[in-house]
């Protein structure tokens, strides 16, 4: 996958920041959608993820010594239209189980890991390369964390997506 690798460490960290912020916002929006559809368990899980990604964003700001978020930071597309760490909006289902949500989170972290690995390979700037490798390692840790979390969560039943009722007032 082609990447326009950032030229400076500032540019790179701005992108990484944007990725975390977008991921956090996406988890928050998904949590709201799940809440509105009475899927409390998954809503809570997505909210936890939103907080975690939000923390990563704050860490980047602190690390870079930024007082305000970088202007016009955009998370680049990776393996599709969306940013590497954002769960695609169309992958959720109103009846999804926590295990499904963690699957999506896992996929997002794995995408992010691949993104940083590729970036490390394609950049010409040494400081960017080092930073990319560091972030890749962090994402790898996140992958492990999500896997561990998944192990504690029950597998969904075969008929998890079945709703005996038709859409509102269908009959």
């Amino acid at each position, binding site marked *: 996958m082609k990447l326009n690798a950032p030229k400076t460490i500032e540019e790179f960290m701005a992108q990484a920041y944007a990725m975390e912020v977008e991921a956090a916002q996406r988890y928050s929006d998904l949590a709201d959608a799940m809440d*509105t*559809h*009475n*899927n*409390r368990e998954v809503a809570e899980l997505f909210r936890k993820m939103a907080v975690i990604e939000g923390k990563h964003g704050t860490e980047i700001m602190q690390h870079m010594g930024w007082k305000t978020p970088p202007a016009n930071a955009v998370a680049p597309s990776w393996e599709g239209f969306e940013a590497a760490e954002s769960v695609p909006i169309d992958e959720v289902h*109103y*009846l999804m189980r926590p295990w499904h949500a963690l699957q999506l989170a896992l996929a997002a972290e794995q995408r992010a890991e691949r993104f940083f690995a590729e970036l490390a390979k394609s950049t010409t700037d040494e400081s960017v390369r080092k930073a990319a490798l560091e972030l890749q390692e962090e994402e790898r840790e996140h992958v492990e964390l999500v896997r561990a979390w998944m192990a504690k969560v029950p597998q969904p039943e075969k*008929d998890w997506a*079945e*709703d*005996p*009722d*038709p*859409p*509102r*007032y269908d*009959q």
Partner: protein
Amino acid sequence: MNSGNAKTLTAAPKGVAFALAGSGGSGVMTAGTTLLAGAANAGVYGLMVRTSGPQIRGGEAAALVRLADRPVDTLGDTFDLLLAIDWGNTHRFADEVPLTARSVIVGDPDEGEPPEVFLATGARYVPLPMKKMAKAIPGSWVNMVALGFAGAMAGFPQEALEAAVRADWKRGETALAANLAALAAGFAAERGITPPIAVPPVPRTEAGAKQRWSISGNEAAGFGAIRGGVRYVAAYPITPATELLEWMAPALAKVGGTLLQAEDELASINMIIGGSFGGVPSLTATAGPGLALMAEGIGLAVASETPVVIVDVMRGGPSTGIPAKSEQSDLSFAVSGLHGDAPRLVLAPSSIADCATTTQWAVYLAEKLQAPAIVLSDQFLGQSRAIIDPPADSGLRAERLKAEANAADYKRYRNTESGVSPMAVPGTPGVTYTADGLEHTEAAVPSSNSRDHQLQLDKRERKLARFDYGDAWADIDGDGDAAVITFGSTSAAVREAVARARAEGVHVRLIAMRLLAPAQPEKLAKALEGVRHVMVVEQNHGGQFLRYLRGHFDLPAKPVGYHRPGPLPLRPGEVHKAIAEWRKAA
């Protein structure tokens, strides 16, 4: 011609009212529908009303089911049972599920405590681990446990419920077996509750002795239309009328008719005018906003004397209003909302079964009188499902007075005694004419002449005013020097309220009007002979029916109104209270 409801004011229906609530895939709507079908198998009548949040799927939902020993078109005052598979946002239904200290709340202890608003009524809380029970039977759904429990509480034999599940089952045999087991588990659980739940079982008629129907008001209206002879429908989807159209689409095809989805309501009304001009009885169905759009077109049907039927499934207004809730607030518009002097027919079915009979009558009248007929149904009737005795076929069919081929000196708008002039159907030689919204001569030539205008206005008014509508214009019951007048879906609640009053020695006549326009002041005067006090009951904010009656009929001095807007239905108890206070003050 009578509606399906009990005509005599006997004691109130005996039965129970259950609310099944849940969210996000819990399947309460299906449980409610199956419970209703089980009721029919058990020789019991019933009514099911659905309510839900704004989400299209996964939202909080409740099936409100009344089971009784006779056909019912109102849910009554309170619920005997609130069974919630989970409590997600169910507190939003508190207004629609009134409970008392004699009610029972069944909830899954793993889903938390029932909301305070329900517990505060003093109802008895019975925990039932429905999810666990369903989990213990692999492949089963939790709503089956709920269904079994509710059916046992109603006193149904288990076989009646099983038959209902089987009849509608669309998934494989193994799933069926698992869910029947879950049903049995729920059934057994009810039997095992101590102390036993004190809800009297619903009295059953001879099970299976009579053929009965499970039908919604929307379906009934569509059926009545087809029975009456409608074969062409053009319409646009709108809540809560869409199901009527979706039922009619394949039904019409089966009888050789056709339904066309129009681009909007302006197209719909003009399309059916075109179809009717071509000789085919035509109909459309809509709700308030759509009816408003059709106003110009309905006027065209009046002026060109083209028969059409417009079913208005009323919902909360004004404007976009409350699309999924019922109200009787389109009355003013229906009886007077056209520009110019434009007489038209307006009818209102008073029960789900009556949706069939009244729509059939509307088709007959529209065709006979070559005029538009508006049928005021509403969301409550349209989207509720009931077990009914099959509505008798009145035998009324579309019977248009047609011009003979090559008739001598044919004049489309000839000034006849009755006001109805023969209508030439395209394809008939020698009697061609141009229909017109412009005022016209008897020969259908556009005219601004004062004599022609007067003549045609008289003709169009006379043909409706002089027609003998017979006894079906209203359902009249009881006697007394006081009368309650109502129309449409409130009729059932008012009927039960009047029965209660009667049992207390307060004698009140009930008039549930079916033909709202043209006004029948002489008939109402006759029905009000001996009556000195009148109360008008309706579900809208402005007292539209009261004002209409005062404007077009003779009422005794100081008529009073009991009216309030939707979204909550009028209940027998509140109407009874209003009647009692009114009679005491008199």
